[in-house]
Protein backbone atom coordinates (compact mmCIF):
# COMPACT_ATOMS: atom_id res chain seq x y z
CA UNK A 1 0.00 0.00 0.00
CA UNK A 2 1.02 3.52 -0.67
CA UNK A 3 1.84 5.61 2.33
CA UNK A 4 -0.99 8.07 1.97
CA UNK A 5 -4.41 6.97 0.83
CA UNK A 6 -6.87 9.66 -0.16
CA UNK A 7 -10.44 8.79 -1.05
CA UNK A 8 -12.11 10.92 -3.68
CA UNK A 9 -15.82 10.38 -2.97
CA UNK A 10 -18.20 11.65 -5.61
CA UNK A 11 -21.96 12.13 -5.73
CA UNK A 12 -22.43 9.29 -8.14
CA UNK A 13 -20.24 7.17 -10.33
CA UNK A 14 -20.45 7.40 -14.10
CA UNK A 15 -20.94 11.16 -14.23
CA UNK A 16 -18.55 12.60 -16.82
CA UNK A 17 -17.81 15.57 -14.61
CA UNK A 18 -16.55 13.41 -11.80
CA UNK A 19 -14.65 11.12 -14.13
CA UNK A 20 -12.79 14.20 -15.27
CA UNK A 21 -12.17 15.20 -11.67
CA UNK A 22 -10.71 11.77 -11.08
CA UNK A 23 -8.31 12.37 -13.93
CA UNK A 24 -7.00 15.42 -12.14
CA UNK A 25 -6.87 13.54 -8.85
CA UNK A 26 -4.74 10.81 -10.36
CA UNK A 27 -2.53 13.47 -11.84
CA UNK A 28 -2.06 14.95 -8.38
CA UNK A 29 -1.27 11.52 -6.96
CA UNK A 30 1.37 10.95 -9.60
CA UNK A 31 2.84 14.33 -8.93
CA UNK A 32 3.01 13.75 -5.18
CA UNK A 33 4.26 10.19 -5.49
CA UNK A 34 3.53 7.75 -2.70
CA UNK A 35 -0.14 8.81 -2.70
CA UNK A 36 -2.93 6.49 -3.70
CA UNK A 37 -6.27 7.97 -4.75
CA UNK A 38 -9.31 5.76 -4.16
CA UNK A 39 -12.00 6.96 -6.55
CA UNK A 40 -15.38 5.87 -5.23
CA UNK A 41 -19.00 6.82 -4.71
CA UNK A 42 -22.50 5.42 -4.86
CA UNK A 43 -24.35 4.73 -8.08
CA UNK A 44 -27.48 6.52 -6.98
CA UNK A 45 -26.94 10.06 -5.78
CA UNK A 46 -28.35 9.58 -2.27
CA UNK A 47 -26.96 10.44 1.13
CA UNK A 48 -27.60 6.98 2.59
CA UNK A 49 -25.57 5.33 -0.13
CA UNK A 50 -22.75 7.80 0.38
CA UNK A 51 -22.74 7.03 4.10
CA UNK A 52 -22.20 3.35 3.38
CA UNK A 53 -19.25 4.31 1.23
CA UNK A 54 -17.87 6.50 4.00
CA UNK A 55 -18.29 3.70 6.54
CA UNK A 56 -16.24 1.35 4.45
CA UNK A 57 -13.57 4.01 3.97
CA UNK A 58 -13.40 4.52 7.73
CA UNK A 59 -12.93 0.80 8.16
CA UNK A 60 -10.12 0.89 5.62
CA UNK A 61 -8.48 3.61 7.68
CA UNK A 62 -7.80 5.88 4.74
CA UNK A 63 -5.83 9.03 5.51
CA UNK A 64 -8.20 11.54 3.99
CA UNK A 65 -11.64 11.78 2.45
CA UNK A 66 -12.39 14.40 -0.16
CA UNK A 67 -16.10 14.37 -0.81
CA UNK A 68 -18.61 16.00 -3.11
CA UNK A 69 -21.72 15.60 -0.98
CA UNK A 70 -25.23 14.56 -1.91
CA UNK A 71 -26.60 16.20 1.21
CA UNK A 72 -24.93 18.86 3.33
CA UNK A 73 -26.43 17.71 6.63
CA UNK A 74 -27.09 14.00 6.45
CA UNK A 75 -23.43 13.20 5.91
CA UNK A 76 -22.26 15.18 8.92
CA UNK A 77 -22.50 12.41 11.55
CA UNK A 78 -20.69 9.91 9.36
CA UNK A 79 -17.95 12.38 8.46
CA UNK A 80 -17.59 13.42 12.10
CA UNK A 81 -17.04 9.79 12.95
CA UNK A 82 -14.33 9.70 10.30
CA UNK A 83 -12.64 12.75 11.81
CA UNK A 84 -12.83 11.20 15.29
CA UNK A 85 -10.94 8.24 13.90
CA UNK A 86 -8.20 10.55 12.68
CA UNK A 87 -9.22 10.86 9.05
CA UNK A 88 -8.87 14.27 7.39
CA UNK A 89 -12.09 15.33 5.73
CA UNK A 90 -12.55 17.98 3.11
CA UNK A 91 -15.48 18.66 0.83
CA UNK A 92 -15.20 19.96 -2.69
CA UNK A 93 -17.65 20.93 -5.41
CA UNK A 94 -20.80 20.26 -3.36
CA UNK A 95 -20.14 21.09 0.27
CA UNK A 96 -20.84 19.64 3.67
CA UNK A 97 -21.98 21.73 6.64
CA UNK A 98 -18.89 23.17 8.41
CA UNK A 99 -19.11 20.80 11.39
CA UNK A 100 -18.77 17.82 9.03
CA UNK A 101 -15.50 18.75 7.33
CA UNK A 102 -12.25 20.57 7.90
CA UNK A 103 -12.43 22.69 4.81
CA UNK A 104 -14.45 23.17 1.70
CA UNK A 105 -13.12 23.82 -1.77
CA UNK A 106 -15.51 25.82 -3.91
CA UNK A 107 -14.82 25.42 -7.61
CA UNK A 108 -15.31 29.12 -7.86
CA UNK A 109 -16.79 31.90 -5.85
CA UNK A 110 -20.46 31.35 -5.26
CA UNK A 111 -21.43 34.92 -5.99
CA UNK A 112 -19.40 34.89 -9.16
CA UNK A 113 -21.02 31.69 -10.40
CA UNK A 114 -24.48 33.00 -9.62
CA UNK A 115 -23.77 36.12 -11.57
CA UNK A 116 -22.14 34.26 -14.43
CA UNK A 117 -25.08 31.96 -15.11
CA UNK A 118 -27.42 34.93 -15.37
CA UNK A 119 -24.93 36.85 -17.45
CA UNK A 120 -24.65 33.95 -19.92
CA UNK A 121 -28.34 34.35 -20.59
CA UNK A 122 -28.43 38.14 -20.42
CA UNK A 123 -25.60 38.60 -22.89
CA UNK A 124 -27.84 37.24 -25.63
CA UNK A 125 -30.97 39.08 -24.47
CA UNK A 126 -30.31 42.72 -25.01
CA UNK A 127 -34.02 43.53 -24.66
CA UNK A 128 -34.36 41.41 -21.56
CA UNK A 129 -37.13 38.84 -21.04
CA UNK A 130 -38.27 35.78 -19.12
CA UNK A 131 -35.76 33.18 -18.02
CA UNK A 132 -36.16 30.05 -15.87
CA UNK A 133 -33.75 27.91 -13.91
CA UNK A 134 -33.63 24.13 -14.22
CA UNK A 135 -31.59 22.95 -11.26
CA UNK A 136 -30.33 19.58 -10.03
CA UNK A 137 -31.95 18.12 -6.93
CA UNK A 138 -33.70 20.43 -4.56
CA UNK A 139 -31.20 19.43 -1.90
CA UNK A 140 -28.02 20.15 -3.86
CA UNK A 141 -26.05 22.60 -1.74
CA UNK A 142 -23.96 24.17 -4.42
CA UNK A 143 -26.79 24.69 -6.90
CA UNK A 144 -28.95 26.23 -4.20
CA UNK A 145 -26.18 28.62 -3.22
CA UNK A 146 -25.63 29.66 -6.84
CA UNK A 147 -29.33 30.21 -7.39
CA UNK A 148 -29.46 32.40 -4.28
CA UNK A 149 -26.50 34.36 -5.57
CA UNK A 150 -28.11 34.67 -8.99
CA UNK A 151 -31.32 35.98 -7.46
CA UNK A 152 -29.32 38.46 -5.44
CA UNK A 153 -27.55 39.75 -8.54
CA UNK A 154 -30.70 40.13 -10.62
CA UNK A 155 -32.25 43.41 -9.41
CA UNK A 156 -29.14 45.57 -9.65
CA UNK A 157 -27.20 44.15 -12.54
CA UNK A 158 -29.84 42.60 -14.80
CA UNK A 159 -32.95 44.66 -14.23
CA UNK A 160 -34.63 43.64 -17.49
CA UNK A 161 -34.22 39.92 -16.88
CA UNK A 162 -37.26 38.32 -15.29
CA UNK A 163 -36.69 35.00 -13.48
CA UNK A 164 -40.06 33.23 -13.74
CA UNK A 165 -39.43 29.84 -12.19
CA UNK A 166 -36.96 27.48 -10.54
CA UNK A 167 -37.62 23.80 -11.13
CA UNK A 168 -35.69 20.67 -10.19
CA UNK A 169 -34.65 17.85 -12.49
CA UNK A 170 -32.87 15.87 -9.77
CA UNK A 171 -29.89 15.30 -12.06
CA UNK A 172 -32.07 12.68 -13.69
CA UNK A 173 -32.33 12.99 -17.45
CA UNK A 174 -35.99 12.01 -17.62
CA UNK A 175 -37.12 14.30 -14.83
CA UNK A 176 -35.01 17.11 -16.28
CA UNK A 177 -36.54 16.58 -19.70
CA UNK A 178 -40.06 16.65 -18.27
CA UNK A 179 -39.35 19.76 -16.27
CA UNK A 180 -37.81 21.53 -19.27
CA UNK A 181 -40.91 20.72 -21.31
CA UNK A 182 -43.10 21.94 -18.50
CA UNK A 183 -41.24 25.25 -18.46
CA UNK A 184 -41.62 25.72 -22.20
CA UNK A 185 -45.31 24.87 -22.08
CA UNK A 186 -46.05 27.05 -19.07
CA UNK A 187 -44.13 30.12 -20.13
CA UNK A 188 -44.74 30.87 -23.80
CA UNK A 189 -42.50 33.92 -23.61
CA UNK A 190 -39.57 32.09 -22.13
CA UNK A 191 -36.32 33.29 -23.69
CA UNK A 192 -33.75 31.23 -21.89
CA UNK A 193 -33.37 28.18 -19.69
CA UNK A 194 -30.49 28.31 -17.27
CA UNK A 195 -29.36 24.91 -16.02
CA UNK A 196 -26.46 25.10 -13.57
CA UNK A 197 -25.98 21.33 -13.76
CA UNK A 198 -24.39 19.20 -16.45
CA UNK A 199 -27.29 16.74 -16.62
CA UNK A 200 -30.02 19.34 -16.75
CA UNK A 201 -28.34 21.49 -19.36
CA UNK A 202 -28.08 18.59 -21.81
CA UNK A 203 -31.70 17.58 -21.24
CA UNK A 204 -32.92 21.14 -21.75
CA UNK A 205 -30.87 21.60 -24.91
CA UNK A 206 -32.23 18.34 -26.30
CA UNK A 207 -35.80 19.47 -25.61
CA UNK A 208 -35.18 22.79 -27.33
CA UNK A 209 -33.67 20.96 -30.29
CA UNK A 210 -36.55 18.46 -30.47
CA UNK A 211 -39.22 21.12 -30.27
CA UNK A 212 -37.58 23.26 -32.97
CA UNK A 213 -37.14 26.15 -30.61
CA UNK A 214 -33.54 26.85 -31.58
CA UNK A 215 -33.21 30.60 -31.81
CA UNK A 216 -36.31 31.14 -29.65
CA UNK A 217 -35.13 29.63 -26.41
CA UNK A 218 -31.49 29.80 -25.49
CA UNK A 219 -30.14 27.12 -23.18
CA UNK A 220 -27.25 27.99 -20.97
CA UNK A 221 -25.72 27.09 -17.66
CA UNK A 222 -22.88 24.89 -16.55
CA UNK A 223 -21.90 22.18 -19.00
CA UNK A 224 -19.06 19.84 -19.84
CA UNK A 225 -17.74 20.81 -23.29
CA UNK A 226 -17.45 17.18 -24.41
CA UNK A 227 -21.06 16.44 -23.58
CA UNK A 228 -22.44 19.75 -24.74
CA UNK A 229 -20.51 20.60 -27.86
CA UNK A 230 -23.23 19.59 -30.31
CA UNK A 231 -25.74 21.99 -28.78
CA UNK A 232 -23.42 24.93 -29.19
CA UNK A 233 -22.83 23.72 -32.72
CA UNK A 234 -26.52 23.47 -33.54
CA UNK A 235 -27.38 26.76 -31.93
CA UNK A 236 -29.54 25.50 -29.10
CA UNK A 237 -27.06 27.22 -26.85
CA UNK A 238 -24.96 30.30 -27.38
CA UNK A 239 -22.52 29.76 -24.58
CA UNK A 240 -22.07 27.85 -21.34
CA UNK A 241 -19.59 28.03 -18.56
CA UNK A 242 -17.74 25.70 -16.24
CA UNK A 243 -14.57 25.44 -14.31
CA UNK A 244 -12.15 22.77 -15.17
CA UNK A 245 -13.14 19.59 -13.30
CA UNK A 246 -9.69 18.16 -13.84
CA UNK A 247 -8.24 21.08 -11.95
CA UNK A 248 -10.88 20.67 -9.28
CA UNK A 249 -10.06 17.01 -8.64
CA UNK A 250 -6.39 17.86 -8.70
CA UNK A 251 -6.79 20.65 -6.20
CA UNK A 252 -8.96 18.56 -3.86
CA UNK A 253 -6.32 15.86 -3.62
CA UNK A 254 -3.56 18.41 -3.14
CA UNK A 255 -5.49 20.03 -0.29
CA UNK A 256 -6.25 16.72 1.35
CA UNK A 257 -2.61 15.77 1.12
CA UNK A 258 -1.59 19.06 2.66
CA UNK A 259 -3.83 18.33 5.66
CA UNK A 260 -2.45 14.82 5.98
CA UNK A 261 1.05 16.23 6.01
CA UNK A 262 0.15 18.48 8.90
CA UNK A 263 -1.44 21.48 7.29
CA UNK A 264 -3.88 23.30 9.55
CA UNK A 265 -7.37 24.23 8.36
CA UNK A 266 -8.39 27.46 10.08
CA UNK A 267 -9.92 30.76 8.99
CA UNK A 268 -7.29 32.78 7.16
CA UNK A 269 -4.96 29.84 6.69
CA UNK A 270 -3.37 29.20 3.29
CA UNK A 271 -3.03 25.70 1.90
CA UNK A 272 -1.29 24.43 -1.19
CA UNK A 273 -3.16 23.38 -4.34
CA UNK A 274 -0.02 22.45 -6.26
CA UNK A 275 -0.03 23.91 -9.74
CA UNK A 276 -3.34 25.66 -9.00
CA UNK A 277 -1.68 27.94 -6.50
CA UNK A 278 -2.80 28.46 -2.94
CA UNK A 279 -6.18 28.41 -1.27
CA UNK A 280 -6.98 30.96 1.38
CA UNK A 281 -9.75 29.96 3.76
CA UNK A 282 -12.51 32.34 4.80
CA UNK A 283 -14.24 32.29 8.19
CA UNK A 284 -16.33 29.20 7.27
CA UNK A 285 -13.12 27.43 6.32
CA UNK A 286 -13.92 27.49 2.64
CA UNK A 287 -12.17 28.92 -0.36
CA UNK A 288 -12.60 29.21 -4.12
CA UNK A 289 -10.38 27.68 -6.76
CA UNK A 290 -10.79 29.86 -9.84
CA UNK A 291 -13.24 31.83 -11.93
CA UNK A 292 -15.64 29.95 -14.18
CA UNK A 293 -14.60 29.68 -17.79
CA UNK A 294 -16.98 30.39 -20.67
CA UNK A 295 -17.26 28.15 -23.70
CA UNK A 296 -18.83 29.28 -26.95
CA UNK A 297 -18.54 28.46 -30.64
CA UNK A 298 -15.03 29.80 -30.77
CA UNK A 299 -13.43 27.48 -28.23
CA UNK A 300 -15.72 24.55 -27.37
CA UNK A 301 -14.29 22.32 -30.10
CA UNK A 302 -10.88 22.57 -28.53
CA UNK A 303 -12.02 21.92 -24.94
CA UNK A 304 -14.40 19.11 -25.85
CA UNK A 305 -11.34 17.01 -26.55
CA UNK A 306 -10.05 17.53 -23.03
CA UNK A 307 -13.10 17.10 -20.77
Amino acid at each position, binding site marked *: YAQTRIALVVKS*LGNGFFDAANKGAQEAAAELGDVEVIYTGPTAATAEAQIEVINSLIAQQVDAIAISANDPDALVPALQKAMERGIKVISWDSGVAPEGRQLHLNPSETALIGETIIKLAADYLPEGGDVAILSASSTATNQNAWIEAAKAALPEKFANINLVAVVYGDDDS*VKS*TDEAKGLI*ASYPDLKAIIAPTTVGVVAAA*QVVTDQNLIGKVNVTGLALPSEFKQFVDNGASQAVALWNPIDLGYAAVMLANDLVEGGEAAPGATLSMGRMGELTLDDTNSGAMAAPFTFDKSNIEEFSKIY
Partner: protein
Amino acid sequence: MNRLLKHREIFLALAILLVLVLVTARFPRFAQPGNLLTIFNDTSILMMLALGQMAVILTRSIDLSMAANLALTGMIVAMTNAAFPGVPIPLLMAMCVVIGAGLGAFNGILVWKLNIPPIVVTLGTLTIFRGLVFVISGGAWVNAAQMSADFIGLQRAVFLGLPVLSWFAIATALVFWVVMTRTPLGRSLYAIGVNPTASVYTGINVGRTKFYAFVISGAVAGLCGYLWVSRYVIASVEVAGGYELTIIAACVIGGVSIAGGIGSVAGVLLGAIFLGVINNALPVINISPFWQMAISGTAILLAVVLNARGERRKGRIILKKAEAT
Protein backbone atom coordinates in the same frame (compact mmCIF):
# COMPACT_ATOMS: atom_id res chain seq x y z
CA MET B 1 -75.96 3.44 -18.76
CA ASN B 2 -75.39 0.63 -16.33
CA ARG B 3 -73.60 -1.31 -19.01
CA LEU B 4 -71.57 1.72 -19.87
CA LEU B 5 -70.25 2.12 -16.34
CA LYS B 6 -69.29 -1.51 -16.28
CA HIS B 7 -66.53 -0.78 -18.72
CA ARG B 8 -63.49 0.43 -16.86
CA GLU B 9 -62.07 1.84 -20.08
CA ILE B 10 -64.92 4.29 -20.50
CA PHE B 11 -64.68 5.28 -16.87
CA LEU B 12 -61.00 5.94 -17.25
CA ALA B 13 -61.43 7.85 -20.49
CA LEU B 14 -63.93 10.07 -18.71
CA ALA B 15 -61.49 10.66 -15.88
CA ILE B 16 -58.79 11.66 -18.34
CA LEU B 17 -61.23 13.96 -20.10
CA LEU B 18 -62.11 15.52 -16.77
CA VAL B 19 -58.47 16.27 -16.00
CA LEU B 20 -58.04 17.75 -19.46
CA VAL B 21 -61.09 19.96 -19.04
CA LEU B 22 -60.04 21.12 -15.58
CA VAL B 23 -56.54 21.97 -16.71
CA THR B 24 -57.71 23.63 -19.89
CA ALA B 25 -60.07 25.80 -17.88
CA ARG B 26 -57.07 27.31 -16.18
CA PHE B 27 -54.70 27.09 -19.05
CA PRO B 28 -56.29 27.06 -22.52
CA ARG B 29 -53.11 26.21 -24.39
CA PHE B 30 -53.03 22.83 -22.73
CA ALA B 31 -55.75 21.24 -24.82
CA GLN B 32 -54.31 22.33 -28.15
CA PRO B 33 -53.90 19.36 -30.47
CA GLY B 34 -50.18 19.98 -30.64
CA ASN B 35 -49.79 19.70 -26.91
CA LEU B 36 -52.00 16.62 -26.71
CA LEU B 37 -49.90 14.93 -29.36
CA THR B 38 -46.82 15.85 -27.37
CA ILE B 39 -48.31 14.21 -24.29
CA PHE B 40 -49.11 11.12 -26.32
CA ASN B 41 -45.57 11.03 -27.63
CA ASP B 42 -44.16 11.52 -24.14
CA THR B 43 -46.23 8.61 -22.88
CA SER B 44 -45.37 6.25 -25.73
CA ILE B 45 -42.60 4.40 -23.95
CA LEU B 46 -44.69 3.95 -20.82
CA MET B 47 -47.56 2.60 -22.90
CA MET B 48 -45.35 0.03 -24.55
CA LEU B 49 -43.78 -1.07 -21.31
CA ALA B 50 -47.16 -1.31 -19.60
CA LEU B 51 -48.46 -3.51 -22.42
CA GLY B 52 -45.50 -5.83 -21.94
CA GLN B 53 -46.11 -5.86 -18.20
CA MET B 54 -49.78 -6.65 -18.79
CA ALA B 55 -48.85 -9.85 -20.64
CA VAL B 56 -47.02 -10.95 -17.49
CA ILE B 57 -49.55 -9.78 -14.92
CA LEU B 58 -52.35 -11.56 -16.78
CA THR B 59 -50.64 -14.85 -15.96
CA ARG B 60 -50.64 -14.05 -12.23
CA SER B 61 -46.96 -13.14 -12.42
CA ILE B 62 -45.13 -9.86 -12.14
CA ASP B 63 -42.01 -8.55 -13.85
CA LEU B 64 -40.06 -6.19 -11.61
CA SER B 65 -37.04 -6.36 -13.88
CA MET B 66 -38.44 -4.50 -16.90
CA ALA B 67 -36.81 -1.17 -16.10
CA ALA B 68 -33.47 -2.82 -15.39
CA ASN B 69 -33.76 -4.82 -18.60
CA LEU B 70 -34.43 -1.56 -20.42
CA ALA B 71 -31.38 0.07 -18.86
CA LEU B 72 -29.12 -2.86 -19.73
CA THR B 73 -30.32 -3.21 -23.30
CA GLY B 74 -30.22 0.56 -23.73
CA MET B 75 -26.64 0.68 -22.52
CA ILE B 76 -25.57 -2.16 -24.81
CA VAL B 77 -27.16 -0.57 -27.84
CA ALA B 78 -25.79 2.88 -27.01
CA MET B 79 -22.28 1.51 -26.56
CA THR B 80 -22.60 -0.40 -29.82
CA ASN B 81 -23.69 2.75 -31.57
CA ALA B 82 -20.85 4.74 -30.02
CA ALA B 83 -18.29 2.15 -31.03
CA PHE B 84 -19.66 1.35 -34.49
CA PRO B 85 -21.65 4.34 -35.70
CA GLY B 86 -22.02 2.64 -39.08
CA VAL B 87 -24.29 -0.17 -37.89
CA PRO B 88 -27.73 0.53 -39.35
CA ILE B 89 -30.40 1.48 -36.83
CA PRO B 90 -32.90 -1.26 -37.79
CA LEU B 91 -30.21 -3.80 -37.03
CA LEU B 92 -29.59 -2.17 -33.67
CA MET B 93 -33.28 -2.29 -32.92
CA ALA B 94 -33.48 -5.94 -33.81
CA MET B 95 -30.53 -6.46 -31.52
CA CYS B 96 -32.41 -4.71 -28.71
CA VAL B 97 -35.45 -6.88 -29.13
CA VAL B 98 -33.33 -10.01 -29.12
CA ILE B 99 -31.29 -9.03 -26.08
CA GLY B 100 -34.38 -7.90 -24.20
CA ALA B 101 -36.20 -11.09 -25.06
CA GLY B 102 -33.15 -13.06 -23.96
CA LEU B 103 -33.13 -11.36 -20.57
CA GLY B 104 -36.86 -11.95 -20.31
CA ALA B 105 -36.30 -15.59 -21.23
CA PHE B 106 -33.87 -15.88 -18.33
CA ASN B 107 -36.65 -14.79 -15.96
CA GLY B 108 -39.05 -17.04 -17.76
CA ILE B 109 -36.85 -20.12 -17.50
CA LEU B 110 -36.46 -19.69 -13.75
CA VAL B 111 -40.21 -19.33 -13.38
CA TRP B 112 -41.00 -22.18 -15.74
CA LYS B 113 -38.40 -24.81 -15.01
CA LEU B 114 -37.59 -24.12 -11.37
CA ASN B 115 -40.98 -22.85 -10.34
CA ILE B 116 -39.58 -19.94 -8.37
CA PRO B 117 -42.23 -17.28 -7.71
CA PRO B 118 -41.95 -14.53 -10.35
CA ILE B 119 -41.69 -11.77 -7.77
CA VAL B 120 -38.59 -13.41 -6.29
CA VAL B 121 -37.00 -14.11 -9.65
CA THR B 122 -37.47 -10.60 -10.95
CA LEU B 123 -36.49 -9.02 -7.66
CA GLY B 124 -33.19 -10.83 -8.12
CA THR B 125 -32.73 -10.11 -11.80
CA LEU B 126 -33.72 -6.49 -11.27
CA THR B 127 -30.55 -5.95 -9.28
CA ILE B 128 -28.46 -8.23 -11.46
CA PHE B 129 -29.40 -6.54 -14.72
CA ARG B 130 -28.78 -3.10 -13.31
CA GLY B 131 -25.48 -4.18 -11.87
CA LEU B 132 -24.49 -5.51 -15.28
CA VAL B 133 -25.12 -2.09 -16.79
CA PHE B 134 -22.41 -0.79 -14.52
CA VAL B 135 -20.11 -3.68 -15.26
CA ILE B 136 -20.29 -3.42 -19.04
CA SER B 137 -20.06 0.35 -19.09
CA GLY B 138 -17.54 0.67 -16.31
CA GLY B 139 -19.93 3.22 -14.90
CA ALA B 140 -19.37 5.65 -17.73
CA TRP B 141 -22.27 7.34 -19.43
CA VAL B 142 -22.87 7.34 -23.13
CA ASN B 143 -23.96 10.84 -24.04
CA ALA B 144 -25.37 12.74 -26.97
CA ALA B 145 -22.01 13.48 -28.49
CA GLN B 146 -21.17 9.79 -28.75
CA MET B 147 -24.43 8.79 -30.40
CA SER B 148 -24.86 8.98 -34.15
CA ALA B 149 -27.33 11.43 -35.65
CA ASP B 150 -29.50 8.60 -37.01
CA PHE B 151 -29.55 6.90 -33.64
CA ILE B 152 -30.98 10.02 -32.02
CA GLY B 153 -32.97 11.20 -34.98
CA LEU B 154 -35.00 8.15 -35.95
CA GLN B 155 -37.70 8.40 -33.32
CA ARG B 156 -37.92 12.16 -33.78
CA ALA B 157 -38.59 11.99 -37.50
CA VAL B 158 -42.16 13.04 -38.22
CA PHE B 159 -44.29 10.72 -40.29
CA LEU B 160 -47.88 11.66 -41.17
CA GLY B 161 -47.80 14.37 -38.53
CA LEU B 162 -46.65 12.15 -35.70
CA PRO B 163 -43.15 11.44 -34.45
CA VAL B 164 -41.93 7.93 -35.21
CA LEU B 165 -41.88 7.21 -31.47
CA SER B 166 -45.66 7.61 -31.37
CA TRP B 167 -45.96 5.25 -34.31
CA PHE B 168 -43.95 2.69 -32.40
CA ALA B 169 -46.46 2.88 -29.57
CA ILE B 170 -49.40 2.65 -31.96
CA ALA B 171 -47.90 -0.33 -33.76
CA THR B 172 -47.11 -2.08 -30.48
CA ALA B 173 -50.65 -1.50 -29.28
CA LEU B 174 -52.07 -2.96 -32.49
CA VAL B 175 -49.85 -6.01 -32.31
CA PHE B 176 -50.80 -6.54 -28.69
CA TRP B 177 -54.47 -6.13 -29.45
CA VAL B 178 -54.32 -8.76 -32.17
CA VAL B 179 -52.24 -11.13 -30.08
CA MET B 180 -54.36 -10.73 -26.97
CA THR B 181 -57.73 -11.17 -28.61
CA ARG B 182 -57.09 -13.20 -31.72
CA THR B 183 -54.39 -15.72 -31.05
CA PRO B 184 -54.24 -18.87 -28.97
CA LEU B 185 -51.18 -17.51 -27.16
CA GLY B 186 -53.04 -14.39 -26.10
CA ARG B 187 -56.06 -16.31 -24.92
CA SER B 188 -53.80 -18.70 -23.04
CA LEU B 189 -52.30 -15.77 -21.16
CA TYR B 190 -55.77 -14.84 -19.99
CA ALA B 191 -56.78 -18.43 -19.33
CA ILE B 192 -53.94 -19.27 -17.00
CA GLY B 193 -54.63 -16.12 -15.07
CA VAL B 194 -58.31 -16.88 -14.68
CA ASN B 195 -57.84 -20.51 -13.69
CA PRO B 196 -54.45 -22.22 -13.87
CA THR B 197 -55.77 -25.69 -13.06
CA ALA B 198 -58.45 -25.52 -15.68
CA SER B 199 -55.81 -24.34 -18.15
CA VAL B 200 -53.83 -27.52 -17.65
CA TYR B 201 -56.95 -29.53 -18.33
CA THR B 202 -57.53 -27.52 -21.47
CA GLY B 203 -54.14 -28.49 -22.81
CA ILE B 204 -52.33 -25.24 -22.07
CA ASN B 205 -48.77 -25.60 -20.87
CA VAL B 206 -48.91 -23.16 -18.00
CA GLY B 207 -45.18 -22.94 -17.38
CA ARG B 208 -44.32 -22.42 -21.02
CA THR B 209 -47.02 -19.80 -21.46
CA LYS B 210 -45.62 -17.86 -18.50
CA PHE B 211 -42.22 -18.19 -20.12
CA TYR B 212 -43.60 -16.62 -23.29
CA ALA B 213 -45.12 -13.81 -21.24
CA PHE B 214 -41.71 -13.01 -19.81
CA VAL B 215 -40.14 -13.18 -23.25
CA ILE B 216 -42.75 -10.73 -24.49
CA SER B 217 -42.21 -8.29 -21.63
CA GLY B 218 -38.47 -8.65 -22.08
CA ALA B 219 -38.63 -7.97 -25.81
CA VAL B 220 -40.73 -4.88 -25.23
CA ALA B 221 -38.37 -3.69 -22.52
CA GLY B 222 -35.45 -4.25 -24.87
CA LEU B 223 -37.01 -2.24 -27.67
CA CYS B 224 -37.85 0.50 -25.18
CA GLY B 225 -34.21 0.42 -24.14
CA TYR B 226 -33.26 1.84 -27.51
CA LEU B 227 -36.17 4.26 -27.56
CA TRP B 228 -35.36 5.49 -24.06
CA VAL B 229 -31.66 6.16 -24.52
CA SER B 230 -32.19 7.81 -27.89
CA ARG B 231 -35.03 9.90 -26.49
CA TYR B 232 -33.18 11.19 -23.47
CA VAL B 233 -29.86 10.95 -25.32
CA ILE B 234 -28.12 9.45 -22.36
CA ALA B 235 -27.36 5.89 -21.37
CA SER B 236 -26.34 5.43 -17.77
CA VAL B 237 -26.72 3.03 -14.90
CA GLU B 238 -29.54 5.08 -13.46
CA VAL B 239 -31.69 5.05 -16.58
CA ALA B 240 -35.32 4.37 -15.67
CA GLY B 241 -34.41 3.77 -12.03
CA GLY B 242 -37.52 2.90 -10.04
CA TYR B 243 -39.58 2.92 -13.21
CA GLU B 244 -40.76 -0.66 -12.69
CA LEU B 245 -43.36 0.53 -10.23
CA THR B 246 -44.61 3.25 -12.58
CA ILE B 247 -45.15 0.59 -15.22
CA ILE B 248 -47.14 -1.53 -12.81
CA ALA B 249 -49.07 1.54 -11.69
CA ALA B 250 -50.08 2.24 -15.29
CA CYS B 251 -51.37 -1.33 -15.59
CA VAL B 252 -53.27 -1.12 -12.32
CA ILE B 253 -54.86 2.21 -13.18
CA GLY B 254 -55.74 0.70 -16.54
CA GLY B 255 -57.75 -2.00 -14.85
CA VAL B 256 -55.35 -4.94 -15.06
CA SER B 257 -56.07 -7.19 -12.11
CA ILE B 258 -52.98 -8.06 -10.12
CA ALA B 259 -54.64 -11.43 -9.47
CA GLY B 260 -54.39 -12.21 -13.17
CA GLY B 261 -56.79 -12.90 -16.00
CA ILE B 262 -58.31 -9.43 -16.30
CA GLY B 263 -57.05 -6.55 -18.38
CA SER B 264 -57.33 -5.03 -21.82
CA VAL B 265 -55.02 -3.28 -24.24
CA ALA B 266 -57.26 -0.22 -24.34
CA GLY B 267 -57.33 -0.04 -20.55
CA VAL B 268 -53.57 -0.19 -20.25
CA LEU B 269 -53.12 2.51 -22.88
CA LEU B 270 -55.53 4.75 -21.02
CA GLY B 271 -53.83 3.97 -17.71
CA ALA B 272 -50.50 5.08 -19.13
CA ILE B 273 -52.03 8.17 -20.72
CA PHE B 274 -53.68 9.05 -17.42
CA LEU B 275 -50.29 9.10 -15.71
CA GLY B 276 -48.85 11.02 -18.65
CA VAL B 277 -51.57 13.66 -18.51
CA ILE B 278 -51.18 14.09 -14.76
CA ASN B 279 -47.43 14.44 -15.05
CA ASN B 280 -47.80 16.95 -17.86
CA ALA B 281 -50.65 18.88 -16.37
CA LEU B 282 -49.20 19.56 -12.94
CA PRO B 283 -46.27 21.74 -13.99
CA VAL B 284 -48.50 23.52 -16.48
CA ILE B 285 -51.15 24.57 -13.99
CA ASN B 286 -48.41 25.71 -11.68
CA ILE B 287 -48.94 23.14 -9.01
CA SER B 288 -45.67 22.72 -7.22
CA PRO B 289 -43.79 19.72 -8.55
CA PHE B 290 -43.63 18.50 -4.98
CA TRP B 291 -47.33 17.62 -5.18
CA GLN B 292 -46.81 15.34 -8.14
CA MET B 293 -45.93 12.22 -6.21
CA ALA B 294 -48.81 12.46 -3.75
CA ILE B 295 -51.27 13.06 -6.55
CA SER B 296 -50.21 10.07 -8.60
CA GLY B 297 -50.28 7.95 -5.43
CA THR B 298 -53.83 9.06 -4.78
CA ALA B 299 -54.76 8.34 -8.39
CA ILE B 300 -53.45 4.80 -8.09
CA LEU B 301 -55.40 4.20 -4.88
CA LEU B 302 -58.60 5.62 -6.36
CA ALA B 303 -58.19 3.47 -9.45
CA VAL B 304 -57.74 0.35 -7.36
CA VAL B 305 -60.74 1.13 -5.20
CA LEU B 306 -62.93 1.85 -8.23
CA ASN B 307 -61.82 -1.26 -10.07
CA ALA B 308 -62.43 -3.39 -7.02
CA ARG B 309 -65.91 -1.90 -6.61
CA GLY B 310 -66.74 -3.01 -10.13
CA GLU B 311 -65.35 -6.47 -9.52
CA ARG B 312 -66.95 -7.13 -6.15
CA ARG B 313 -69.68 -9.74 -6.24
CA LYS B 314 -72.42 -9.33 -3.77
CA GLY B 315 -72.97 -12.96 -2.95
CA ARG B 316 -74.36 -15.66 -5.13
CA ILE B 317 -77.63 -14.92 -6.85
CA ILE B 318 -80.17 -17.43 -5.63
CA LEU B 319 -83.34 -15.47 -5.02
CA LYS B 320 -85.38 -15.11 -8.20
CA LYS B 321 -86.13 -11.45 -7.47
CA ALA B 322 -82.41 -10.68 -7.22
CA GLU B 323 -81.69 -11.84 -10.74
CA ALA B 324 -80.76 -9.05 -13.13
CA THR B 325 -82.64 -10.22 -16.22
